[in-house]
């Protein structure tokens, strides 16, 4: 027995408890010592209470641990994430199916089709990496600075025209060696590939007559385009032999009077699209070969 086990003042005190009485007291029998019985009861009440099982113990006991409920934000995020995943999956499936179908129909450009065929989607007819044949292609686009190759059954827009027709027209328009009517006529002649004069002569209707009348009245090369309803120019397609209404102004503007001396707009672009921009005197002349394109884009 160590010194800590016994307080100094206890050594000579009588012990009133035998083991039987102590066991009875600790088991709840008050016996002859109700004060100690109250003390034992107070100790049990004061200290004994079952704690809440933690998550790990609850898992061992097969109980669901008390986890915090997911917040509204996290629940909404879960819904958004599942919805987004579903949409992305559906979009991927659609793209894959469409790409595979186009690849099977050989409707994709060669590099794309080769890439698709490498992925195993669609037909593998281009697996030999041969470039597609232009003749067999119906909608192929060739990389050319000025021309778009159209299918053989359509009329090529760049037939019989130089590669830089707009540039030529622009050069003539910027050439101020001639002035006034002559300048406009020269520009018109270049723009219409030399058919301006004959077109104007052959053009029926009031256009040429009015032009001649205006020229005689004002002494200048001012020409007039007679417009129909909606700003359409009355022209005659000599090839077709009938008169029809063609839209002389694609962008909605209606150049009713085009002064011949100030024809060039000087904002020329490469390619045939500039053909109509240099419209000195050409607005009145319907192109025999061009059909409705002669007056197109008048001054855009």
């Amino acid at each position: 027995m160590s010194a800590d086990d016994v307080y100094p003042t206890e050594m000579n005190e009588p012990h009133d408890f035998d083991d039987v009485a102590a066991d009875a007291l600790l088991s709840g029998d008050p016996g002859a010592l109700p004060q100690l019985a109250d003390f034992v009861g107070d100790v049990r009440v004061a200290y004994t209470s079952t704690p809440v099982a933690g998550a790990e113990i609850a898992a061992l006991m097969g109980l669901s641990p008390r986890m915090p409920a997911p917040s509204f934000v996290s629940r909404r995020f879960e819904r958004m994430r599942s919805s987004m995943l579903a949409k992305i999956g559906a979009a991927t499936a659609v793209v894959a199916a469409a790409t595979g179908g186009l690849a099977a129909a050989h409707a994709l450009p060669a590099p794309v089709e080769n890439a698709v065929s490498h992925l195993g989607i669609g037909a593998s007819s281009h697996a030999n990496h041969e470039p597609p044949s232009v003749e067999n292609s119906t909608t192929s686009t060739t990389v050319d600075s000025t021309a778009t190759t159209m299918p053989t059954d359509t009329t090529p827009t760049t037939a019989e025209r130089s590669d830089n027709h707009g540039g030529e027209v622009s050069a003539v328009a910027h050439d101020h060696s001639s002035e006034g009517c002559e300048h406009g006529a020269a520009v018109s002649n270049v723009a219409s590939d030399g058919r301006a004069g004959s077109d104007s002569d052959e053009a029926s209707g009031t256009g040429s007559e009015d032009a001649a009348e205006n020229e005689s009245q004002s002494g200048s090369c001012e020409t007039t385009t007679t417009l129909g309803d909606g700003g359409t120019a009355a022209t005659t397609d000599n090839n077709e032999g009938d008169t029809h209404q063609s839209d002389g102004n694609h962008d909605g503007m209606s150049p009713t009077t085009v002064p011949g001396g100030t024809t060039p707009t000087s904002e020329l672009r490469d390619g045939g699209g500039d053909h109509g921009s240099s419209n000195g005197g050409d607005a009145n002349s319907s192109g025999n070969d061009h059909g409705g394109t002669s007056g197109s884009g008048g001054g855009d």
Partner: protein
Amino acid sequence: MSKTEETLDVAIAQARAGDPLGFETLFRALAGSVAGYLRARSVADPDGMTNDVLLRVFRSIGTFEGDGEGFRAWLFTIARNAALDDARRRRRRPAEAPLSHGQEHSGGDAETEVMAKLAHERVDALLGSLSPDQRDVLVLRIVGDLSIAQVASVLGKSYEAVRALQRRGLASVLRKISSQEAVRQ
């Protein structure tokens, strides 16, 4: 063997087999006693430490060999060692505000809460007047429902030493109570 001991034996066998019902029975039968013992020893977080102790016991229950009596002694030995470790840690650390131990009486009426608090203070004062070994013996006997032999096993003392500690501890408490009553009169 009492019915409680039989139930404990069955629960131990179930827990050793990994049956969740065995763990649940053991937790319900022993967690309150372990928590009470740790509260009496004024550990910082008695409920959390009770979970730690029981989790440690449950995880190593496969290595336990014995009956319900031995299991109780083993469990409280681990709880006592945890309390000693906690006391050592708290000695090394700056002083912390002690947590109020015992049951929380939230929701009860004010008189009951006041009486419970007074009972706590009284019990704390009486147990605080005892030597550590006397306090350990009485708490393990009262709160842990351990026998003298089990207490001797937990404390690493002989049966006779525990008997003497118990006797002297009870006598000391009785003297304190008697002196308090004499003061009131």
